[in-house]
Structures are given as C-alpha cells and as structure tokens.
C-alpha cells in the first residue's frame, strides 16, 4: 500500500515518532506476552491481581515481587503487566464499538442527509456540549460503577467524534465523479456506500482511532482513579494509582519510603499515553499532505 | 568591483543568486540575474510562473521568502540621500528606513496583502507614521498653534502641543510611552495627530480615485472589492513617495475591466510621483502598454533586455520569440511553447532553455550563455548571438 509506505517513511524521518513507535511496540509486546511475563494462578481471573497477605502497608521491591506490593499486598509487577493488557482490551473495545457506531450513524447521515443528518448533528452537538470526563462520570453513576459501565459510558461519549468525521468524509466523497458514475449505472445505495464510499472514508477514521487510544485509556484510568471503574485488586493502572494515594507522605524521616506504589503504575500509564501520542502526532502530520495529495 | 551607478541609474542587480533549501533539494530560483533600472523608468519583467520574477522583486526589498537564501550578487540602489548602497549588505535597521520610504511594493493579491483584522486606514497610517512622523507632527503642531492663537484651544491643546514637541525630539522616549498608557490623557494626546494623519490618508485615497474615501478609510479589507483593495495597497505603497515601486502582477487577480483601471491608475500616478517602476507580469499585452524597457526572465535567468518597441519588433532570444508568438491574436492560430518550465532543483545544464529551444546547439548544453550587449540597449543571453563580441545583428531565422 502506497499510503503505508509513505507513513513509514515519515515516521523514520522524525526521531520523536521513532521513540513513540518504540514505546508502542514495547507495550504491545508486554500486552501480548502478559501470561508469560506474569503467569496467572490457574483457575482465577487473570485480571485480578494476586495478593500476598492483607496488611494495608505496602512492601518494597524484593526478588519475588520486583515492583513491590501495594496497599492490601497486591503484586505491583503483576498489576502493571496485566494492566497493559487491560488498557489495550478496554481501549480497543471502546474505540472499535464507537467507530462502528460512528460509521453507521455518520454514514447514514452523510449519505441520506436531510432529517437524519439534522438529527445526528443536533445529538452530537448536545454530547459535545459536555466535557467528556464529566458526562462519562454521570453515565457511570447512572449505570452503577464498574468496568462494564465505564465501557458503555465511554462509548456513548466517544462515538459522535467518529460519526462527524465519517459524515464529513462522505459529504466530500459523495460529490466525486466515481460515485456519480456508480449512481448513473444504477448501483444500489448500499452497494455504493459499502463498495465505493467507505473504503475511501475509512482511512482518516483509522488515523483518528489510533490518535484516540491514548486519551481513551487516560480517561478510563481517571474514572478508575475516582473509584468509578475497576474494582480494588483489578489489574488497572488508574486503580493502582488510586491505591497509592495514602502513601505519598512516606514514613517519618523517610519521606519517599513508598515511592514504588505511586511511581511505577503512573509511569506505565504516562509512557503508554505518550507513546501513542507521539505516534499519533506523526500520523497527523502524514494526514495533512495526504489530504492535499488527493 | 564598481560600487557606483551611472548618474541616470536608480538600481542595478548584479549576478543575483537566490536558492531555496527545501526537502526536495536546493531550488535554484534565481541564478546570476542581471538587471538595471534608470531613474523614472518603467522596467517590465516578464516570464512564466516560477521564472524567479517575484523572488527577485522581494529580494530587492531584502525580504526573500523562506526557505530562500541570497547566495551571491549585489543590489545597488541610489538612496534618497544620493548615496549608493548594496541593499544586501544593509542592516535591518537601515532596511526598515528604506522599505516603504525609498522602495515599496504592490502585490498580486491585494486581499492577501492586507491584514484582515485592521481597518485599511490603520494600515495606510502605519506606512505614514513609520516614515513621515516629523512631517505629520509639524502639521499637527501648526494646527494646534493656530487653535491656541484663535483662543479655541484649551488645556488639551497645550497637552498635545507638549507631547508632539517631545515626540519630535525622541519618539521613543519613556515618558511618552508612559503618558500614552494613561487612561483619558493617552487618548487626548494622539487626537490631533490622528486627525492630521487621517486627513492625509483621505487625500491619498482620493488620489487613488477611491470614491467616498471618508467611509473607505474606516472599512475592513473584506468589505472592499478586489479593485478597491488594490487601490489601498497602492496608496500604502505611494504614501511616502518612494523612489522605486515594485509591482508584482498587480492586476492578475482582478476582473478584466478593473485590470485596465488599475493599470491606468499606475501609469498616471507614476507621472505624478515620478517613481521608477519595476512591473512584473506574465502578460505581454500589459508589458507593451506600461513599460519603457523589458527584461525577459526564464527559469531564474534574465535572458533578454531591450526597449519595449525593439523587443516586440526584433526579439532575439528564442524564448522571447516564443512568448510573443504565444500571444493570442484574432485570426491567428494559437501557438504554445513546447515543453514545460524546468524543475529548478535539477535545472538543465548550460542554457536552461535548451531542452525547449528549436535552435539548440551542442554548445547550449554545456555553456551558460552570458547576457551580452547586441545593440546599444539590447542585451541577450543566447549562444546564437555570442560571436566575438556584441554589436552583431543577426537574423538567424
């Protein structure tokens, strides 16, 4: 594919996007290899972090627990490794479903226009009238806390962006010659949308989706941090950071005694988001000349 | 190296080289270009898009657009004080004094040349206040003294009088800056000056044949038509009666009828202001109408220079001939120039026109032809006329 080659060349040319790509590859490998890096106990939900006791006081890194144990004796190493997998799982799920809804709704609105379009634009206006995190928060509370509610709430908040993108793309493509030609030879609407318009509109959507992974994971982590998402003990970075809040003052005379409980999960989340943002930044740069080339 | 100009010369561009450092490579936009301009003369520069005409004009103002760099040559200019300076060697401080006062420019797209966020009057005022502040202050002081003598002036007139006298001594004095920041007093201080400048602008706009200048002066650029916008741009350029006016395709973006009006205006204003003009265009018709002499540019080179009548009657360079044949005439079939404008990253070797030239010889691929004098005022850069020296008349067709 010519576009793919072009993207790879652009990525090679900017050092920061190479850093981004490296970080993303690292996290992807960690997510895939999680069962090997941190084998779950057989018969248990692998996303629940094994605990080694019930004491609230964290324990520093040791050979058995390389990142230490957090409040409630949850293994931090296991938590951040499976947290990577959990971040990908929920991030990709939210984006995939949002994008699918976006394609369907945006496609209908863009192709048929008029009333459907008007309704879509007003609905998206309303959803955009709220800051994302706050609307998601309200929806999670209404659905009852938990990761499933978070997923659902995030999808409801996130799809309008994709719907607008697809609508815009379709409005642009619809007027192009090859679509007019397809109409003229009597292709059905569905056939025109699926065979001619979507393949052309999907490309910007893919770029937007990859740009969004960082912010989706960040927002989900924020909800978990607020205590609305993952339950205690779930391998989730936001939840692990939330567990560390009581330990920032350390011990008397040893202020950073518990540095590992707040530094490690936060660093994983931060690097994950930064990796995707750096890569997304490079993709965005690619998108510009791409539009011009068409 | 001669750093002087002949008495009747205003400007001489010598061996100018401008290159653009882009991702695709080094674009050799202007390569050893030579031009000269006499006082009060209109020189037309003609050439296709990408021939380096606009870059040359901007470089005369030392405003070569990025990522361009001047890599050689000199631009000698006879200053308002009679001194001859190489513009490329002037400090930014000197250039600020020169631009708009001694050399000014009008642009291809008037809409783009005006800042959309400021009223047009404000933008004309910038030029006047940059270069003619003492003159404006004198007028304001004169008028204030008059008021005071007649007994119409009060405290505010005295305040303004004080401020303007201070401004004449040192416009950047700290106390003035502080006073201008004061709430009511700050506004009071500039009242008379603003009025004087405004009157000057309205007079200028009237000269530009702008109807209802009192209204136009307070308009934003987008409220005016393209022709009106261009008149404003011309007003800005002529606000300080420059010695040299650079006109970069000023009529190209306008409607045909407006084109004629603007061209007419420039011709008439030239007589009034007595400026020399460099008029850049790709339109041979415009060239015939406006210029005294013509320089033909091709791919960054000046290939032929001649008085306008001579050029039309007896073009020498094959490119010039092709250009003249490409002018559509009723009854005649339209002839285009075969081939395309060369890529300036990897320009053709030797004469840059040789791939499109019907008379190309082996020599043309190897040697860059120099601009040589053929008759008294006719120069051409072509191996067909090279010979032993200049003065040789040729009819090679």
């Amino acid at each position, binding site marked *: 594919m010519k576009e793919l080659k072009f993207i790879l060349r652009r990525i090679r040319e900017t050092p920061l996007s190479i850093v981004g790509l490296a970080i993303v590859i690292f996290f992807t490998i960690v997510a895939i290899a999680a069962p090997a890096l941190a084998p779950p106990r057989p018969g248990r939900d692998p996303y629940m972090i094994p605990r080694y006791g019930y004491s609230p006081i964290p324990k520093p890194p040791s050979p058995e627990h390389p990142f230490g144990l957090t409040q409630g004796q949850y293994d931090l190493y296991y938590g951040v490794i499976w947290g990577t997998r959990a971040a990908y799982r929920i991030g990709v799920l939210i984006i995939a479903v949002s994008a699918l809804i976006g394609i369907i709704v945006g496609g209908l609105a863009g192709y048929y226009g008029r009333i459907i379009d008007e309704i879509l634009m007003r609905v998206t206006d309303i959803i955009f009238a709220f800051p994302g995190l706050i609307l998601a928060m309200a929806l999670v509370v209404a659905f009852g806390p938990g990761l499933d509610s978070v997923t659902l709430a995030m999808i409801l908040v996130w799809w309008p962006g994709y719907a607008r993108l697809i609508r815009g793309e379709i409005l642009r493509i619809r007027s192009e010659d090859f679509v007019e030609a397809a109409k003229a030879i009597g292709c059905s609407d569905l056939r025109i949308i699926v065979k001619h318009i979507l393949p052309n509109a999907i490309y910007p959507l893919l770029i937007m989706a990859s740009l969004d992974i960082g912010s989706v994971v960040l927002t989900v982590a924020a909800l978990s941090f607020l*205590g609305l998402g993952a339950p205690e003990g779930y391998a989730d970075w936001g939840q692990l950071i939330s567990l560390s809040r009581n330990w920032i003052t350390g011990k008397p005379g040893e202020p950073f005694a518990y540095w590992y409980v707040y530094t490690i999960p936060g660093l994983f989340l931060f690097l994950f988001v930064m990796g995707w943002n750096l890569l997304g930044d490079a993709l965005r740069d690619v998108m510009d000349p791409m539009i011009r080339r068409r | 190296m001669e750093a002087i100009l002949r008495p009747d010369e205003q400007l001489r561009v010598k061996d100018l080289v401008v290159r653009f450092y882009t991702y695709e490579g080094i674009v050799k936009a202007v390569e050893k270009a030579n031009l000269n301009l006499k006082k009060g003369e209109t020189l037309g520069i003609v050439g296709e898009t990408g021939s380096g005409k606009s870059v040359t004009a901007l470089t005369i103002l030392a405003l070569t657009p990025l990522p361009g760099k001047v890599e050689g040559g000199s631009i000698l200019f006879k200053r308002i004080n009679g001194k001859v300076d190489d513009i490329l060697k002037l400090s930014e401080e000197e250039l600020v*004094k020169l631009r*708009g006062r001694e050399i000014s420019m009008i642009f291809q797209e008037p809409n783009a040349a005006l800042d959309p966020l400021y009223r047009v009057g404000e933008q004309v005022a910038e030029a006047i206040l940059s270069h003619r502040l003492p003159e404006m202050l004198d007028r304001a002081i004169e008028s204030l003294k008059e008021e005071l003598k007649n007994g119409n002036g009060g405290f505010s007139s005295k305040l303004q009088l004080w401020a303007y006298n201070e401004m004449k001594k040192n416009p950047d004095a700290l106390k003035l800056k502080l006073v201008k920041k004061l709430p009511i007093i700050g506004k009071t201080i500039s009242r008379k000056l603003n009025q004087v400048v405004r009157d000057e602008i309205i007079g200028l706009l009237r000269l530009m044949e702008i109807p209802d200048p009192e209204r136009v002066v307070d308009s934003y650029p987008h409220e005016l038509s393209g022709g009106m916008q261009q008149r404003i741009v011309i007003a800005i350029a002529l606000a300080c009666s420059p010695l040299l006016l650079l006109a970069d395709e000023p009529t190209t973006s306008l409607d045909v009828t407006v084109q004629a009006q603007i061209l007419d205006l420039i011709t008439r204003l030239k007589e009034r202001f007595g400026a020399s003009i460099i008029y850049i265009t790709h339109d041979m018709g415009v060239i015939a109408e406006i210029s005294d002499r013509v320089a033909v540019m091709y791919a960054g080179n000046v290939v032929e220079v001649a008085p306008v009548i001579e050029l039309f009657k007896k073009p020498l360079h094959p490119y010039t001939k092709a250009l003249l044949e490409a002018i559509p005439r009723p009854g005649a079939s339209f002839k285009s120039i075969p081939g395309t404008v060369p890529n300036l990253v990897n320009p053709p070797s030797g004469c840059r026109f040789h791939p499109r030239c019907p008379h190309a010889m082996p020599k043309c691929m190897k040697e860059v032809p120099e601009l040589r004098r053929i008759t008294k005022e006719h120069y051409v850069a072509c191996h067909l006329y090279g010979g032993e020296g200049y003065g040789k008349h040729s009819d090679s067709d």
Partner: protein
Amino acid sequence: MSASMRTYIIRRLLLIIPVLIGVTLLIFAITQLFSPVERASLYIRDPRQAKDLPSIIKKYGLDLPVYIQYFRWIDQVLHGNLGWSESTHMPVLKALITHFPATAELALYAAPLTIIIGILLGKLAAIKKDTAVDHATRIMAIIGWSLPSFWLGIMLLAIFYGGLGIFSPGRLSVWAENLVLSGEFKVYTGLYTIDAILNLNGAVLLDALSHLALPVTTLVTINIALLMRIMRSSMLEQLNKTYVIAARARGLKWKTVIDKHATKNALISVVTISGLLTAGMLSGMVITETVFEFKGIGYWAAHAATQLDIPAVLGFALFAGTIFVIANLIVDILYAYIDPRIRLG
C-alpha cells in the same frame, strides 16, 4: 460597542437556547434510566419516609408520560430544585453554591496562567523555529499532553508535601481555617486569596496561595500543551502570509509585525480551540480537586459519584454543561471581537 457587534451577540445568544435545551434533555434522559420508585427515593431524606413513596411519585408526577415529566422537571430545575444530595446532606443547589468559590478560585489562577504562558511559549517557539527553544517547548507539550493529571498531582504531593513538607493539600491550613470559622476573618467572596486581601491579612493570603500552588501547577501543566501547539502552528502559518511581507515592505519593524499583526491573526485559531481548553479545565478540576482535597465543585461531585449520590452528579453535570456552553458563547464573542469578518459577515 458597535451595532454589528450587538447584533452578533444577540444572534449568538439565541443560538445557545437549543443547545441548552439539549443539555437538559440529555440529563433528563439519564434520569429516565431509573424507575419511578428509584427516582422518588431521591426526594426522601429519611428512611422512615419510605412508605410515602407512592405519594411522592404522585406529587412529582413521576408516573406521567415522559414529555410531561420533562416539563415538570425543567420547571423544578428553573426553580432551583435539583434534588437532595445525600452525600453532603443538603440540597444539590446549595451544595453547588457552597463549593463554587473554591473552584472559581482555582480557575481564577489556573486559566489566565495557562492562557498567558501557553500563548507566549507557542509564539516564542514559532519565532525561534527549529532552535533549542522550539524543541524544548515541543517536548514540554508532549509530556504535558500525556501526563495523567491525577498522577502528576500525586507526584507533586509526594515531592513537595511528603518530601519537602511544603504546599499541603486542602485550601487552608488548620489555623487559617479556624480563623475563617471563628468569624474574625470576614468571608466576602469565598475566594480566600481575595478575601485575605479584603481583610488585609497577609498570613492567610500566603497560606491560601501556598495551597493553590500545586493544583494550579497541575492544571496549567496539563492544559498548556494544546494551547502551545496550536499557537505555534498558527503563528508559523501567519508568518508565511503575504500580509506579513506586505507589512514589512511598508517599513514596519519585525517586532511590530509580529506583535501587532501576526500574533493577533494567530490568536484567532487559538480562540477557536478554547472550547477544548474549557472542557479540559472542567474535567481537570474534578481530578485535581480530588487529588489535592481542594473542596470545590469537582471534589464534591467526585465524592458524590463514589457514594452514588445521583442527584448530585446529575446536578453537577448540568452545571458543567451549562458552564461549558456559556464559556463557548464567551469565546465566540471574543472571536467576533478580534475578527471583523465574523461580526460583519
């Protein structure tokens, strides 16, 4: 104010009415996720009232057709009745009003700092493109953009509070809080820094400022990235425009061209993204106030959320949505103020 500006503002004001109706519709739709009995229980303040549920349903018309309920609900909202916040034991509206000054104080410092520093750095990066300054701001932007605000807050607390023992969480130290409660310190606005100035109390002022330092730093760091990047790219775009060349060609100094012409034009794109900035600020408030136990609206809403205090969360969402819509309105007016093409178009 010019006539054209006045017409523009009126037109724009009329346009936000449908959006505000939409906002209420969405919040109302969320309430419809609950059964009438569940919604009725939101109105009771005492378990002993449980047997009155049917009468409450009747009283508030919770079993009527949806559209009638909507109008009744709107009527309640317009009369300031947003329900009872169980987590704080007061009506939602009162809780909002009580917690508002803290949030306003945070915004009072965070928003201008973000805007001023962001614009200045973005402009600097553009003028000094491809120099060390440019690269430094770019890296700053990428880090700020990727930092989870709650983690940044925790790290700042660990270093400055845990490690160095300065800048503690909360809004005031205990002694200052006691002073406020004692009534000796008059509370005029609820914004302690301003009240301290009005009371001529330097100690409280310093104390309040030291408590603001970390949350403001967090909010600025997180939100500045977007602004910086937009300002940089938009400034670069403007510097290549013909009017910049034309302004220089008429003899203006480079500094004047940048400050008077290019910057003002570049600000237009900044204004158009300030909606995103407002959203970032509002979301950031929830997180930042929670991390720093800064008892503003965000802190209150986050706590209400964990205790499933539904009226409080919905009231907060309605409030945030309205603030956001109004902020966008102000931004649009600002936009028209800068750009004559908008107000005259």
